[in-house]
């Protein structure tokens, strides 16, 4: 039996270089069992390389990690038996149908033929892919492919799941579907390591976030702490009547932080620590008769977080070609 631990992932000083680039440069992670942990960073920050080390696809040059209590190098097989990987490239076979993909994985994991078929049918139904079950995956939309990819990770329920950029390139509707799936997984007790480029995604799903840049963890904390470090969110308000603006400015300044008057004479924005305070401010405006055309509370983007944390914007650092093989 693996030693019981409250931590599903413990990584210490992971390092991985490709040629001369240190893609991962001393990453430490501690992920609580049963939680969603977000790894946030731009392309090429080292997120995928970190996941590939933890999923035993590549060996770290330095450092060590335990996944569900098993050492990723010495007990790689035990790690593989307990985790599922949903990679950045869709990890399903495009030349097979959705149903065949799930049956194939079921058979590989030890389900008998009939059980593998039944499991495939159950997952296809749960993920809304029944109609597409007999179609080749290469004809699937991005959202369908992602759903199948996640379903493929659940043929046998894993204790821990790696999700590498599950919503990159998806439309908002498909993105929300994927988020719902992730929430359902967590509700059933699966631990998830989620790599993402979107602060909003990490904020929606994750309990803890590590921000990673150039292979290093540059900040760690809860979503609230991270957003706090960039000064929270901002409330944007547009008024029906521009002549109300001085009154609105006075009220917002009283409830929130610095108020900024936008070029649009009916618009203004204010810094706010959290959405509750913004809601209070909006209610106050309504009570005092200021009529509002629309308002929104925006989250700081990854760029803003990066700017605040590193002083530079989140650029796409050149990803060391991990897929490339030596000729």
């Amino acid at each position, binding site marked *: 039996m693996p030693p019981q631990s409250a931590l599903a992932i413990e990584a210490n000083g992971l390092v991985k270089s490709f040629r001369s680039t240190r893609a991962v440069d001393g990453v430490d992670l501690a992920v609580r069992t049963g939680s969603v942990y977000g790894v946030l960073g731009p392309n090429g920050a080292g997120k995928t390389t970190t996941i590939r080390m933890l999923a035993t696809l590549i060996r770290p040059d330095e450092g060590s990690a335990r996944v569900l209590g098993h050492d990723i190098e010495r007990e790689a097989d035990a790690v593989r038996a307990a985790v*599922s990987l949903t990679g950045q490239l869709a990890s399903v076979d495009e030349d097979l149908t959705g149903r065949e993909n799930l049956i194939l*994985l079921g058979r590989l994991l030890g389900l008998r033929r009939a059980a593998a078929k039944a499991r495939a049918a159950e997952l296809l139904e749960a*993920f809304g892919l029944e109609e597409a079950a007999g179609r080749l995956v290469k004809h699937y939309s991005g959202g369908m492919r992602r759903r199948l990819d996640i379903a493929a990770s659940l043929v046998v329920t894993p204790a821990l799941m790696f999700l590498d950029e599950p919503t990159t390139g998806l439309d908002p509707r498909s993105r929300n579907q994927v988020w719902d799936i992730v929430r359902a997984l967590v509700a059933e007790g699966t631990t998830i390591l989620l790599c993402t480029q979107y602060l909003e995604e990490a904020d929606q799903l994750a309990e803890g976030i590590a921000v990673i840049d150039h292979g290093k963890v540059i900040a760690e904390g809860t979503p609230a702490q991270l957003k706090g470090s960039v000064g929270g969110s901002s409330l944007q308000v547009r008024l029906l009547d521009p002549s109300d603006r001085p009154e609105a400015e006075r009220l917002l300044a009283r409830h929130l932080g610095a108020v900024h008057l936008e070029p649009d004479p009916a618009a203004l924005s204010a810094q706010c620590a959290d959405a509750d305070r913004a809601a209070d401010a909006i209610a106050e405006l309504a009570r005092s008769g200021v009529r509002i055309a629309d308002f929104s509370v925006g989250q700081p983007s990854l760029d803003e977080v990066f700017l605040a944390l590193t002083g530079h914007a989140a650029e796409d650092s050149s990803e060391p070609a991990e897929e*490339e093989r030596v000729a």
Partner: protein
Amino acid sequence: MSATAEIRSAIASTARPPRPSRVSQALTFGWRGMLKVKHVPEQLLDVTVTPVMFVLLFTYLFGGAISGSTDDYLQYILPGTLVMSVLFTTVYSGVAVNTDLTKGVVDRFRSMPVWRPAPLLGALLGDSVRYLVAGTVIIVLGVILGFDPEAGIGGVLLALALVVAFAFALSWVFTTLGLLLRSPQAVMNAGFMAIFPLTFLSNVFVDPETLPSALEAFVNVNPISILTDATRGLMAGDAAAQDVLIVLAVGVVLTAIFAPLTTRLYRKA
């Protein structure tokens, strides 16, 4: 999109089954290969049209010149064409492995608790079916054109089995190549650069006694010549046991070297 509740119940309902046997895993990967043929049957054109072309070309173009009659030459060339066509097909196994690696699904296989060589072994088992198809096409066409093996159907089947077994062993060389080179095209080029001269510098087309002595010496030790001799022998009912044993031994040695090498490279790729 169905309700989250459905997903929750689908997730909650599984217990981890016992791990399947290695053989079962490899056969599952073989099934994957068969499914691909089912979805893209055109793939079989490679292994059917080319051999037909070879048989017709060599028999009718060279037969008169080499043997004096196309009918006599057919008896000589058909087992040779069988060997050549099937061995050419092995290059595609390397191409297929290389193509597979560019896809995300390999990451999934490698992150699963499956026996390491299973994906490759399964793929090659699936490819062996293609070798069988290529071989059968040639033999059937040969019989239609007048090929008359003295050992009858039994001998022909033994010959086919020997060729397919050797092809299986040889394909490990090309899967190794497939994992070392960058692109499917590179694998294809390098593969044919190796297999083409080896096949032509054998006794597939001509009796080695007509060759310059240095060349003859090479041709006589070329395993492809020995395989061709054994194939002819099995079909004619006068196979030298020694030839068959050498072919099998070479196959075992190739597999012993290149199967573990391929598996190692696959793990790291």
